[in-house]
């Protein structure tokens, strides 16, 4: 079956919505734009599509090769589409959680988090090295159940959905919506470096996976999100943005004292070091919790 490409169809809408958001911010609405940050984000997005064109053929070929071993043939009914979208979103959750907890996958994903701003252009700040990071492997099991064209369509729907949640313009959606779907509020938490918010809300379309697997954290009005990464780049250079974590891995692996340490510098969580000299999200949270406890114990002035 020939399916349309949701991403290609959505590009004009992406542009119009960004223009609308810029105007909204200009005339006093909530949000922020820094033109150099936006330029970096959009160049990263454009480069990502180029990278996708170069490597996409290999992924599609692998998908169809795997599909010949499909364990079931569900056909093209509407409920199969719905099931595929749900399954694809679960696969996305697993990928996304791995992308924050395994440095190899993080090296490709960190690009998306490297902006200290949070607006619609941030949504398009995408990696150039996703194929090199082997990110496609998380969707491979789906090809044993669903037609590859259906899976690729579902993943494109997922990607398009996630565009609009990258904004500060929208506060909170109705409670029933917030309970089930990924929303701007939930995703602001995901992009924040506040210790409370680190490594939370990995959802693509449905927030239900975070609630099921214990990674959900609601946005708090008394704790506004601060965006970026733990060690912000301090640079708008697109090449540095694209490759800085890969360079970091290479340096660490080169200087590691043992083969085990070399392996761990690639697969342990971001911030892991063989001598404990750096911070992981666990140590950041632990120190924050200690500080909160200390402040709470201090007598009020």
């Amino acid at each position, binding site marked *: 079956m020939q399916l349309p490409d949701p991403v*290609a169809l959505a*590009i*004009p809408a*992406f*542009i119009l919505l*960004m*223009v609308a958001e*810029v*105007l909204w*911010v*200009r005339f006093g609405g909530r949000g*922020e*734009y*820094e*033109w*150099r*940050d*936006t*330029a970096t984000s*959009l*160049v990263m997005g*454009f480069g990502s*599509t180029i990278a996708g064109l170069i490597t996409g053929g290999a992924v599609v070929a692998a998908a169809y090769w795997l599909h010949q071993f499909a364990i079931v043939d569900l056909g093209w009914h509407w409920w199969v589409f719905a099931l595929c979208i749900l399954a694809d979103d679960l696969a996305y959750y697993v990928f996304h959680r791995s992308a924050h907890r395994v440095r190899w996958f993080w090296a490709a994903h960190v690009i998306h988090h490297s902006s*200290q*701003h949070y607006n619609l*252009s941030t949504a398009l700040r995408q990696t150039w090295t996703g194929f090199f990071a082997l990110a496609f492997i998380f969707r491979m099991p789906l090809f044993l159940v669903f037609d590859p064209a259906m899976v690729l369509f579902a993943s494109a729907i997922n990607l398009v959905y996630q565009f609009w949640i990258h904004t500060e313009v929208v506060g909170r959606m109705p409670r029933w919506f917030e309970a089930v779907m990924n929303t701007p509020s939930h995703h602001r938490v995901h992009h924040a*470096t*506040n*210790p409370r918010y680190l490594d939370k809300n990995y959802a693509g379309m449905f927030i239900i996976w975070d609630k099921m697997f214990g990674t959900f954290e609601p946005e708090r009005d008394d704790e506004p999100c*601060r965006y*970026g990464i*733990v*060690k*912000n*780049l*301090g*640079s*708008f*250079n697109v090449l*540095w943005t694209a490759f*800085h974590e890969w360079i970091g891995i290479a340096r660490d692996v080169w200087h590691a004292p043992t083969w085990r340490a070399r392996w761990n510098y690639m697969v342990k969580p971001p911030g892991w070091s063989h001598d404990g000299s750096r*911070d992981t999200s666990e*140590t*950041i949270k632990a*120190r*924050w919790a200690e*500080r909160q406890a200390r402040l709470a114990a201090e007598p009020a002035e």
Partner: protein
Amino acid sequence: MLAQTLISVGGIALVVLLARWLGVRRPAAGLDAKAAVDLAEFTLAGFVADDVALGADGGGAIVSGQGGRFALIKPHGSHWAVRGIAAPVAVTVESDDLIVDGGDPMFGLVRLRIGAEAAETLAARLRAQAG
């Protein structure tokens, strides 16, 4: 494919130029001592600030912390970027300015106008940290 590419490139140019011309880039919010301490303690886990040297021209700050730690703060667009400084620290004093090289070439040098005497004093501490 060509049409899609042209639309994408045109869209990028439109949004970036609009963001620049409409002036939605706000300069980094003013950095005072309290804000510098907050930035340093938020960014660097376990950092407890002791003293702040603010650049007079809004160029950033160095926050001295307990345990010989330092936080180097520089403006980055409409935000601030922070680096924890570890030995060795390369510093230069040029009249009233302290120029700090945090060791990250992509982060760049940070020039702070803090006065000649303060610059010399802080430079000595940062170089001693490297020793």
